């Protein structure tokens, strides 16, 4: 059975949206590149845009903050973080459930605002009979979720939610069976700590590791993460900055880079690196540039193991 990963929110820190100027710019660039071509139908134009134009012209990496769904082939939902991407996820869950209450297992990297802000807008939380189990390693987990819905910050208090919400405390380094999926949290370097999760089901492995800074000259740290990522089919990795930025002006900000993502995945012999938690100040062209640079770095430094490198965008689905 395959494991599907669906990205509902991929941006870090704060949500962003394309402006009308951004859309005009993409259209103008597309028209320029298509100059002189004739398209007999929408399908023909669509095929041209898909095959010929850069991703940053035809798409956007999107603007919702972190929320990633894992579909392991069970009736229950598995979700990493509750950033603003949790709102469209909630719409999806409600439509799929067709009025049947859902069971949703949430795994929290940490409780900084961008990772919890979608929960008050997560539709299933307002449906009686819904079970939401919020897993995490922080002892302030429940406090943070209740606090963001307390007056005067939000009109609906946490106590008014219709769903049965349970907070489940996990310990880093310990493996848990959550409804047939093996889940192992791992402590990461971030302000107030963060935790990555390694998910295993039917021989497929997904690692969700965001808001995590790495200092690879520390051999112990590097090996610890390489073991955490070991042979993963997919590593969803905090690649907020270019390396120079991550270790100079933004050192100790708790984030990592595309280059360190490639190095750690190579050490771990992981199969697919997914750049994630995009810097909100970066436009689509810049993000595509960071992806191309990561792919080139992988090519330059490849040994006997090839690593696929992609960049996550809102709406992306990956089947493993």
């Amino acid at each position, binding site marked *: 059975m395959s494991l599907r990963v669906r990205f509902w929110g991929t941006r870090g820190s704060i949500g962003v949206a394309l402006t009308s100027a951004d859309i005009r710019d993409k259209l103008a660039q597309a028209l320029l590149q298509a100059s002189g071509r004739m398209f007999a139908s929408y399908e023909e134009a669509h095929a041209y845009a898909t095959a010929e134009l850069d991703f940053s012209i035809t798409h956007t990496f999107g603007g919702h903050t972190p929320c990633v769904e894992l579909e392991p082939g069970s009736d229950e939902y598995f979700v990493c973080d509750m950033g603003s991407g949790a709102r469209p996820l909630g719409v999806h869950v409600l439509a799929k459930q067709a009025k049947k209450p859902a069971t949703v297992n949430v795994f929290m990297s940490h409780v900084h605002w961008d990772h919890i802000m979608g929960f008050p807008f997560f539709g299933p939380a307002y449906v009686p009979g819904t079970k939401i189990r919020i897993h995490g390693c922080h002892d302030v987990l429940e406090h943070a979720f209740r606090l963001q819905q307390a007056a005067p910050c939000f009109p609906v208090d946490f106590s008014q939610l219709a769903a049965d919400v349970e907070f489940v405390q996990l310990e880093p380094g310990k493996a848990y069976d959550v409804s047939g999926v093996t889940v192992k949290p791992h402590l990461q370097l971030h302000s107030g700590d963060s935790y990555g999760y390694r998910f295993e089901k039917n021989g497929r492995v997904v690692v969700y590791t965001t808001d995590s800074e790495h200092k690879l000259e520390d051999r112990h740290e590097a090996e610890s993460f390489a073991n955490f990522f070991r042979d993963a089919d997919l590593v969803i990795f905090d690649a907020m900055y270019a390396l120079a930025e991550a270790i100079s002006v933004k050192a100790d900000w708790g984030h990592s880079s595309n280059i360190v993502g490639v190095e750690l995945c190579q050490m771990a012999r992981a199969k697919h690196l997914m750049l994630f938690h995009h810097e909100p100040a970066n436009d689509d062209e810049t993000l595509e540039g960071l992806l191309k640079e990561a792919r080139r*770095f992988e090519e330059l430094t490849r040994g006997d193991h090839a690593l696929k490198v992609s960049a996550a965008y809102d709406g992306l689905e990956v089947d493993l």
Partner: protein
Amino acid sequence: MTMNVAARRFANALVLHASGRLDQDTCEAFRTDLTGHVDTAVRDRAALVLDLSDLEYVSSAGLRCLLIASRQMKAAKGRISVAQMQPMVAEIFEISHFDMLFDVYPTVPEALAAVSADAAAAYSTR
């Protein structure tokens, strides 16, 4: 795999010739070496030029060592530059955006000419 660093003085510039692979295995020893040379350059008010013509590879851990040296030099109002990188190392510098943090020169003489005419002249008569 080892990293070797050889230092030579040309007027008011100290040229460090680095050879080998600068990665997780070698960065700690390299950093210790480099720190000593940075101290010397700061004490003598000399500019530091890193001759990377025989550097085969640099990883993120290695780049961090270079950045630490750059910070030390800049804190002492000193000057640090890199020169003569092999194509692969030059590309890694670009990919990691390190070319925005360092003054990069195609050759050692060009790096020395940017320091002073005396340094360039001393190098040409070596």
